């Protein structure tokens, strides 16, 4: 115990913790920069640092970047990372209603709780959870992806047909590229398309560009000097008002109590998603959002500004962080892309994952894990301190927001892979996203389908390769698969049965 605390409380570690948390918030808050990118850029710095500080710094960047994405998602309707896409839906609605600070507070609370719960799980029951994770393979992933796609119905608001069309569009986009060798589908001979449409530029395009254009709609055509003057005054007022954002940040106990079950449920699901290699924060947030909606008594609020929705998605995506580190540290199998970078940095330090980490190097490992939990708490505090300024940013006049969001979107899309093509992708999706918005097609199903469609296809093909004989027999002889199949059928049939029952009465 003493060794752990002394490792953790050394100056280098504390500095790394603070720097990592702050850096992660910035990286996560900017659209286009993700946790994985931030962590990998820090790896060269870790070459010269001791193991515990460098791993704590990387872990801090990971969890605070996932949390930081919620800032831009809530305030300017642009998810800072793919893991915050679900938060953007309800979060921005709340900002429009003037409750931006409150939304940030709930998001912070949920993220911190989700992260701490996953950190505790990592500390206490990692080996047991890993055994469960190994039972999941391609067939299960396929069914999880299909189940995830059934969430589309819930995201479509009132018009299910339009939601399905959006999701269908997302599925088609997901088919571009070389998912299945050796056919480069829909690539039209373009080398960039052969690699597929990248998720992050598409997401930035679908969320932030329509946002910019919607803000532009509010421009008033000046007809005479009188009107011009009025506009100038109102803009000055807006700027002045921006400095006086009202509202409270931390949720009051009365507000928090109904949210706690949602948060805990989403956290546990998030840990589950994190443990599965190949499912990361982006899927965790949708699973959390969906579980919040399922258990909610105010379902009609979802999509119009539901605090429960934000709580669910943020708890889910932060719980994935700890969850993803579980198989990474115990088996060397990263549970997400960022966890893979974490593992890589650990390898560079000279440590490989496995039982050694928890026996021979237990002190070091536990220091890192406690540091991870500390980072989750620290990011909540930093978020609270930064929230006042962040919220003022969202209240600025449109004339300032528009160029800022535009330039961040453009450079954010470019900086991911240093590829100008990604900016074109963003532009394309921006135009389509605006048209979708005008005609009331929801954008969330498209993002969901873009994530889950390729996952479903890849895993179906792999499961066909894995089965020795009949694919149907294979699926039906795997208990987890059967469970998911029943779940999917029940999910799809439940509303039918409910309606029939209501009509029969």
């Amino acid at each position: 115990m003493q060794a752990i605390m002394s490792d953790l409380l050394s100056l280098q570690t504390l500095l790394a913790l603070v720097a990592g948390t702050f850096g992660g918030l910035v990286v996560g808050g900017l659209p286009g920069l993700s946790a994985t990118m931030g962590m990998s850029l820090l790896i060269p710095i870790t070459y010269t640092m001791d193991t515990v500080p460098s791993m704590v710094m990387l872990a801090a960047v990971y969890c605070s970047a996932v949390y930081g994405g919620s800032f831009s998602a809530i305030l300017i309707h642009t998810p800072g990372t793919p893991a915050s896409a679900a938060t953007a839906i309800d979060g921005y609605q709340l900002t429009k209603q003037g409750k931006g600070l409150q939304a940030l507070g709930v998001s912070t609370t949920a993220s911190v709780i989700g992260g701490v719960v996953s950190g505790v799980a990592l500390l206490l029951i990692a080996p047991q959870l890993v055994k469960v994770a190994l039972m999941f393979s391609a067939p299960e992933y396929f069914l999880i992806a299909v189940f995830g796609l059934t969430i589309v119905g819930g995201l479509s608001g009132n018009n299910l047909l339009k939601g399905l069309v959006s999701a269908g569009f997302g599925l088609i986009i997901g088919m571009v590229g070389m998912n299945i060798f050796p056919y480069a589908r829909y690539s039209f001979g373009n080398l960039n398309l052969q690699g597929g449409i990248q998720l992050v530029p598409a997401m930035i395009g679908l969320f932030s560009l329509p946002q910019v254009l919607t803000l532009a709609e509010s421009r008033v055509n000046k007809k005479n000097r009188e009107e011009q003057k009025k506009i100038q005054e109102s803009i000055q007022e807006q700027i002045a008002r921006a400095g006086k954002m009202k509202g409270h940040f931390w949720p009051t106990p009365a507000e928090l109590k109904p949210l706690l079950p949602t948060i805990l449920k989403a956290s546990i699901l998030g840990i589950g998603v994190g443990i599965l290699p190949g499912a990361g924060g982006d899927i965790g947030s949708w699973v959390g959002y969906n579980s919040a909606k399922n258990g909610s008594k105010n379902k009609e609020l979802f999509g119009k500004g539901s605090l429960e929705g934000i709580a669910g998605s943020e708890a889910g995506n932060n719980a994935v962080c700890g969850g993803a580190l579980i198989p990474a540290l115990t088996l060397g199998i990263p549970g997400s892309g960022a966890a893979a970078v974490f593992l890589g940095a650990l390898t560079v330090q000279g440590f490989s994952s496995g039982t050694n980490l928890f026996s021979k190097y237990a002190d070091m490992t536990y220091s890192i894990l406690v540091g991870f939990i500390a980072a989750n708490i620290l990011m909540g505090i930093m978020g609270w301190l930064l929230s006042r300024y962040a919220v003022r940013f969202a209240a600025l006049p449109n004339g300032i927001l528009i160029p800022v969001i535009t330039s961040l979107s453009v450079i954010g899309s470019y900086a991911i892979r240093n590829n100008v093509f990604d900016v074109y992708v963003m532009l394309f999706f921006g135009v389509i996203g605006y048209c979708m918005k005008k005609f009331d097609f929801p954008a969330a199903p498209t993002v969901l389908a873009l994530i889950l469609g390729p996952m479903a296809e890849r895993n179906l093909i792999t499961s066909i390769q894995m089965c020795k004989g009949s694919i149907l027999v294979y699926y039906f002889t795997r208990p987890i698969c059967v469970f998911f199949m029943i779940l999917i059928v029940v999910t799809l049939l439940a509303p039918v049965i409910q309606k029939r029952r209501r009509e029969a009465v």
Partner: protein
Amino acid sequence: MPWGCWWEPYSAKSGDKHRRQRPWREKLESPLATLALVVVYALGFKYIGFYVTTFVVTVVLMLYMGIRSMKTMILVVVVLLAFLYGLFTMQLKVPMPQGILF
């Protein structure tokens, strides 16, 4: 788990469409103009240079949206460009495409 009645493709709200007659042309002018600027920005920064294009587009957009105060415009431009430069070029060392200008 009510997902809405998925087998009934038409929702109650579709009748609303006829009531929402918008003055289409007027409403679309500013977004389309903004879109044109954004397209110029996204296509042009590779050739002209990122920071110069950002500067020009930012100024034009602010003017277009009605901001006239010199102080505001200078502040926004300086803060934005400094932030982008400091983060992307200096800290992250992202190699910007080499355009004619900076």
